[in-house]
């Protein structure tokens, strides 16, 4: 059998997904035995123009990590889509926008001014700022355009599979690779992870679905037995897709939702508002005054940033209203 051709690309990402590929340890040797890597900016010196020269569908599988933040990312998404038979959104940022997607509470001008002019640690008396184009004696130089809104990969091009996680776990990556090598991939559009919610694979014990207060993680030392939500820590396991092996919970941290919502959920944040508000302060609710209800809800400091931690760009509203 001919070797498969793989490509890896990073858009707006932290680099963690690149490391995750290596976290499959010695299994990486199977990969290089069965596949050639034809493009991988972090490791191989292959230029964009080399990719442009590939025939369409030359790449068998492209693993694309990172969100779409600049025109360069968008161009690469279109290019790699055209050159790949199978395009996999790899990691939370490519699947949902991820952490970079939280920048949708701001916009291009706000971020630009903050970074180059307003931050107290910035000293820029001449207000020197980057330009998208610059005419140098040697010719015109350009930089990619920075967008107002961060997007997930499937919001700019057609995506075949989603492999979520921040980053995807070695187990899920291995399962995906096995499916690719054995030709057992599920139908196009599938997420290569379980359908159930994280609570189902969480080792902690659920006793009662009521919480009297919300605390921030640093305010509580979890007892290691009971569900974190019941101990007052906002845990998103209730509507986050399983598949990570509850790795944060096992480290005494609540789930922040990096596997994205379960298949039934469209808007993860809205569903969390519903779930958390329904179980918070149930005890004695009939005697609570409006003021007390507000004080209770005020214990949740940043609902948008908490409940849409990884999924703001794919939420119903997608971003904050821009002041234009």
């Amino acid at each position, binding site marked *: 059998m001919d070797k498969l051709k793989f490509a890896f690309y990073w858009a707006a990402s932290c680099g963690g997904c690149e490391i995750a590929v290596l976290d499959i340890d010695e299994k990486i040797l199977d990969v290089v035995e069965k596949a050639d890597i034809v493009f991988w900016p972090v490791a191989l010196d292959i230029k964009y123009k080399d990719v442009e020269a590939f025939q369409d569908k030359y790449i068998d599988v492209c693993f694309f990590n990172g969100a779409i933040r600049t025109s360069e990312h968008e161009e690469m998404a279109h290019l790699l889509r055209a050159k790949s038979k199978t395009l996999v959104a790899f990691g939370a940022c490519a699947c949902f926008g991820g952490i970079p997607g939280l920048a*949708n*509470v701001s*916009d291009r001008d706000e971020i630009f001014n903050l970074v180059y002019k307003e931050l107290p640690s910035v000293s820029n008396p001449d207000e020197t700022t980057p330009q998208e184009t610059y005419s140098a004696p040697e010719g015109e130089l350009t930089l990619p355009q920075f*967008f*107002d*809104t961060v997007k997930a990969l499937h919001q700019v091009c057609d995506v075949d599979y989603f492999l979520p996680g921040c980053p995807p776990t070695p187990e899920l990556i291995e399962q995906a690779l096995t499916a690719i090598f054995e030709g057992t991939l599920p139908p196009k559009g599938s997420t290569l992870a379980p359908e159930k919610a994280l609570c189902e694979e969480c080792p902690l014990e659920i006793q009662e679905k009521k919480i009297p207060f919300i605390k921030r993680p640093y305010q509580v030392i979890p007892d290691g037995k009971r569900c974190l939500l019941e101990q007052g820590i906002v845990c998103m396991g209730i509507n986050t897709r399983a598949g990570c092996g509850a790795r944060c919970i096992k480290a005494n941290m609540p789930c922040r939702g990096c596997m994205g919502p379960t298949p039934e959920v*469209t*808007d993860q*944040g*809205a*569903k969390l*508002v*519903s779930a*958390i*508000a*329904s179980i*918070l*302060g*149930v005890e004695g*609710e*009939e005697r*609570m005054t*409006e003021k007390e*209800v*507000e004080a*209770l*809800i*005020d214990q*949740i400091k*940043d*609902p*948008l*940033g908490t*409940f849409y931690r990884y999924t703001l760009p794919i*939420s*119903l*509203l*997608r*971003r*904050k*209203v*821009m*002041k234009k």
Partner: protein
Amino acid sequence: MYEPKIIGFLCNWCSYAAADLAGTSRIQYPSNMRAIRVMCSSRIDPEHVLRAFVNGADGVLIAGCHPGDCHYISGNYKTERKYVLMRKMLEQFGIDPRRLRLEWCSSAEGGKFAQVVTEMTEELRTLGPIQLGAGD
């Protein structure tokens, strides 16, 4: 004059009956609200509210039974907490929280119901059409 669109989620047992009473009593009030009957105010998921906004509603009214009167005993307490949290989050999204309103109207309060819709319509007129951030 600018006519705002309001989606009204009315609980079957109290507020929908209040709207009915306002109608049969021939109380005049603006026709800006489209009513959607639900069994209990607590059936309204924040996702329904966001969907209403995304589909062009300028305001969303949730109306249910007075505290203590919910026909499912405690649904409206949950509604109230969801509403308070929702408003906080709408503000973070840059959407004026006055676009979402929660009211308790019993089946005898046709007059109150008409007044709520009138007030809300006027308030939305001053706020103008909703703007969401679709972005580039």
